[in-house]
């Protein structure tokens, strides 16, 4: 019997690796932002203590279908992110997967964002609704770029099987696709300059305003896993596939770490853009880049 699927789901890059790694990357982000602002920043275990503390909070009782939905959204987000992590083509030499798993990965990556939007509307808070609307508009804009980038990579690799997409390629289309993915990550993670959806000081915490206790802790865990998933996806597209597992696994973490540093530096050095400007950025500039990339990839494919 082949246990590689279970190992991926529970060990690497699944639950046992992903939860501490996600918390570590959240800490790296906070620490990097703090260092850039010449502060000291939080201690290493801060995300862990935050999570434990939130589990110990007693939340006010809410009744009806709303309460159940609000409790389920973060659970769905965490589960879909763990499943998406298990699909990542780490150790491509031993990877399973199936033809077309790239499409499933895109679907699973969207679940947290959809849950976040639904949570905002379900909570009944006006701030939640404003935040959810912002997230919906921004995710439509950034998803166009992200899908086009992934399709560009798939077209250059002539496959929708993630194992075939993994690893560096001589084809420039692959690298333009990776660049497009990197451009989308700040919007997906709601980082500055695209952080309008959960803009504190303005609309409280956006869709999460009404959340408290364990459910809020799960949302924070989902955010940590999202960090790992998105940086990990780019890492698998960059890292050479022929490496032995004991070189690949540390290299994977190092590449993710460097991406987190880059994204934190961008977040610390930019201010929050208005919704209109964020959407303009994706539709006007990033989408143009992505359309050029996919059309050139398609042309090259037919020529070769």
């Amino acid at each position, binding site marked *: 019997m082949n246990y590689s699927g279970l190992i991926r789901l529970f060990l690497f890059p699944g639950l046992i690796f992903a939860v501490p790694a996600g918390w570590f990357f959240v800490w790296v982000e906070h620490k990097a932002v703090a260092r850039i602002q010449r502060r000291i920043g939080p201690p290493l*275990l801060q995300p862990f*203590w*935050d999570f434990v*503390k939130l589990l110990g909070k007693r939340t006010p009782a809410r009744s009806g279908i709303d309460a159940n939905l609000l409790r389920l959204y973060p659970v769905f987000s965490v589960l879909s992110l763990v499943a998406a992590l298990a699909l990542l083509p780490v150790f491509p030499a031993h990877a399973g997967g199936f033809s077309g798993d790239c499409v499933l990965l895109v679907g699973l990556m969207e679940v947290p964002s959809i849950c976040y939007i639904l949570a905002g509307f379900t909570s009944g808070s006006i701030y939640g609704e404003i935040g959810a609307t912002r997230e919906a508009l921004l995710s439509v804009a950034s998803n166009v770029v992200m899908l086009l980038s992934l399709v560009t990579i798939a077209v250059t690799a002539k496959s929708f099987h993630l194992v075939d997409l993994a690893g560096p390629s001589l084809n420039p289309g692959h690298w333009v696709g990776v660049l497009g993915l990197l451009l989308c990550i700040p919007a997906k993670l709601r980082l500055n300059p695209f952080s309008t959806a959960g803009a*504190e000081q303005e609309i409280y915490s956006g869709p*999460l*305003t009404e959340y408290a206790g364990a459910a*809020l802790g799960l949302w924070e865990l989902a955010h940590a896993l999202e960090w790992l998933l998105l940086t990990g996806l780019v890492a698998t597209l960059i890292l050479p596939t022929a490496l032995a597992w004991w070189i690949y696994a540390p290299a994977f973490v190092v590449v993710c770490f460097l991406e987190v540093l880059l994204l934190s530096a961008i977040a610390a050095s930019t201010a929050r853009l208005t919704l209109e400007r964020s959407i303009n950025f994706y539709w006007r500039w990033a989408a143009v880049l992505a359309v050029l990339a996919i059309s050139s990839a398609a042309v090259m494919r037919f020529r070769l």
Partner: protein
Amino acid sequence: MSLLQKLLHKARVKSPRIFHINSGSCNGCDIELITCLSPRYDVEQLGIHLEASPRHADILCITGPVTRNTLEAVKNAYAQVCEPKAVVAIGSCGATCNVFAGSPSVVGPLSKYIPVDVYVPGCPPHPDAIINGIFEAAHILAERGVRKEAKGLPQE
């Protein structure tokens, strides 16, 4: 204390999240509280984080004497913070109404309406004193959580 309670106690001390309410303050204490987040004092190294929603917070930081207009907001925000929670009154106004005492629009002091755990006196208090007050409140809150769990008391 069981192992789980010890872990929760430590987590509560290490991760106090604060929510700030201005209940008619002259803005002096608010400026000093925001200074705590700046590079010079950097409360994030103690795990203290200023939250945008009272639902996410553990410690309520209230500045100002309570005015008639803000009374309902203060009571409401206090009710929104989930147990275990603690309240820090920042500045002399919270304790005594200070120079605003006797004003027809001031209905304070704060302790008439909600239980206050830590008073940070001063007009305005020094940021170091505010950080000390929040840190003390985090310990009070952790002790309170453990006590209630041990007794199995119903939570309000």
